[in-house]
């Protein structure tokens, strides 16, 4: 009984920490400023930029993460352990370091050649997407792999014995069965991408109306000692994050009933 109460107390303490931080924002709340900052052209651009970059980076990340997770979950191949270990790189290395590594890459002849002949990444929208993509893909792969590990390979073996190719079995058995894991990974990937700061600022800079995502806008407002403005932008970011998580949760619940 004591253990149960203790455990519940710890879980409530997590809520208290996060909620307490959020409530603190209201100390500097200025209602008249909220509408003005929220509807300003610069903030609306940051919101649009953050949403689009995070969405594109997450989709690209998932396109790579899903087959990679399948390979890591199902097959034995040379270098598998190294690939598996390096997935955690974005978590163990600071995002600023990831951004710096990306920036350094584009100073090499190969990086320079890519930028000159294909896409300019440094200080552009593509740079934001790339920084977020690099930060989230490893995590997405790890999460989806964990979900695929839970699905017994026997399902695919039986499917193959019924004359179904591995490709079709992947789309008709493995993918639907890991649906919940992939959705959860997508949510976390997107949430991580939209809140990404360190790598993004290093690769794309802080150009207003060009590469200023919401987290960067928050940082700039705070750097200028504009606490009221910072509070508004934090609330916008939190609002976007929580609303998205809520919508996805409702959608998942509905689809679970249909499935």
């Amino acid at each position, binding site marked *: 009984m004591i253990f149960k109460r203790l455990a519940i107390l710890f879980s409530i303490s997590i809520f208290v920490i996060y909620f307490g931080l959020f409530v603190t924002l209201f100390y500097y709340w200025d209602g008249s400023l909220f509408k003005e900052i929220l509807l300003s052209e610069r903030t609306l651009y940051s919101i649009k930029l953050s949403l689009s970059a995070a969405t594109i980076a997450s989709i690209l990340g998932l396109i790579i993460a899903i087959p990679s997770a399948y390979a890591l979950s199902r097959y034995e191949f040379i270098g598998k352990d190294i690939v598996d270990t390096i997935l955690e790189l974005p978590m163990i290395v600071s995002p600023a370091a990831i951004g710096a590594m990306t920036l350094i890459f584009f100073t090499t002849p190969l990086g320079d050649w890519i930028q000159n002949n294909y896409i300019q990444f440094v200080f552009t929208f593509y740079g934001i997407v790339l920084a977020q993509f690099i930060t989230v893909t490893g995590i997405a792969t790890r999460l989806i792999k964990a979900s695929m590990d839970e699905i*017994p390979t026997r399902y695919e073996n039986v499917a193959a014995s*019924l004359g*179904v190719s591995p490709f079709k079995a992947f789309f008709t058995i493995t993918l639907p069965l890991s649906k919940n894991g992939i959705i959860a990974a997508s949510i976390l990937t997107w949430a991580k991408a939209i809140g990404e700061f360190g790598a993004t600022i290093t690769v794309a800079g802080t150009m207003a109306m060009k590469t200023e995502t919401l987290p960067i806008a928050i940082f700039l407002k705070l750097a200028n000692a504009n606490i009221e403005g910072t509070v508004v932008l934090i609330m916008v970011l939190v609002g976007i994050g929580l609303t998205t998580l809520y919508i996805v949760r409702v959608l998942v619940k509905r689809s679970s009933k249909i499935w």
Partner: protein
Amino acid sequence: MVELRDITVQNRGFTLNKISIDIKTGNCHCLIGPTGCGKTTLLEAILGLRKVKSGSIMVDGKDITALPIHKRGFSYVPQDLAIFPHLTVYENIVYGIKYGNLENKDELYKLAMELSESLGISNLLNRKAANLSGGERQRVALVRAISTGNKYLLLDEPLSSLHEGLKRELWFLLKELQKKYNFTVLMVSHDIEEATFMANHISVIIAGKLMQTGVKDEVYQYPANREVAEFFGIKNIFDAQVIGIYDGYYKAYCDMLGTEIAIPVGNVKGYEIEKGKNISFAIRSENIIIQRPDLPMKKDNILKGVIKTIYNSGPTSIVLFKPEGKELVVEITMPEFAMAKLSLKPNDEASIALRMERIFVLD
């Protein structure tokens, strides 16, 4: 026919060593052996789940050793059945037909419906697979496997989780289906009763080696060696020395039992016996008779001694008999009605007879 030739499979320190078996078309061939002996590994190698280090797998004269699973033509029912949980019963049973590279799909859809009807699952077609009972799941797995039209069905202990009544019901069902649709079954089991009921042929695998393969009755009645006999649960294994060769039978002296034993010549399989040779022979406990004083007594292979213990196990009783002047015990299985007539109790003196035609010599 499936022909396995010198199949060697290595798996994390375990080796399945040079297995050669013929699985004849239309037969039910059962791979049996103790847990961890390699029978499932062999089944998985045939299916294509495990890499064959050496040897070949031929199906109807065609070498399929290097083919991927989906091109081998073996339908597989694993131990946990692997019913796809996100699909309905109907989607499960037509899965192979819908997504597989199969011919005559219209005919196969008809076959799936016909099988659903005859196995009594046609009323479950719209139900989610996750909501099925154990017996229903078995039936869905069988219909799904047979509906592909594959001629070969590989079963990995698919009935092991069922209770006795349902298991027996499915034995009969599987037999009927096999007869009706004429497919070949290769089945893995550790259940001797299941194997002897289902199979025409049995292969015994112990510690990665094929110990014996052949017609069911032959393998069951005459285990080739001590390992197979022990796997079959035969406790009455004795050493003896051949002391005479007569017309139709050998005479051996068994010091362990303190008596002479007559063994029919026909029960010595595969090698010559000469006078003075040391042999091991065995007899199943149900082939030993406790003699009734009111009936004509047998004359050969008689032992006198005392009843040490009697265990009742439902329809049969297990009697432990101690031969006169010896410390070992002989195990006897008697039907309950016969025990009632004998009205024996521990420490009673008794005379037993080892049925000569059921004694077999071990390699």
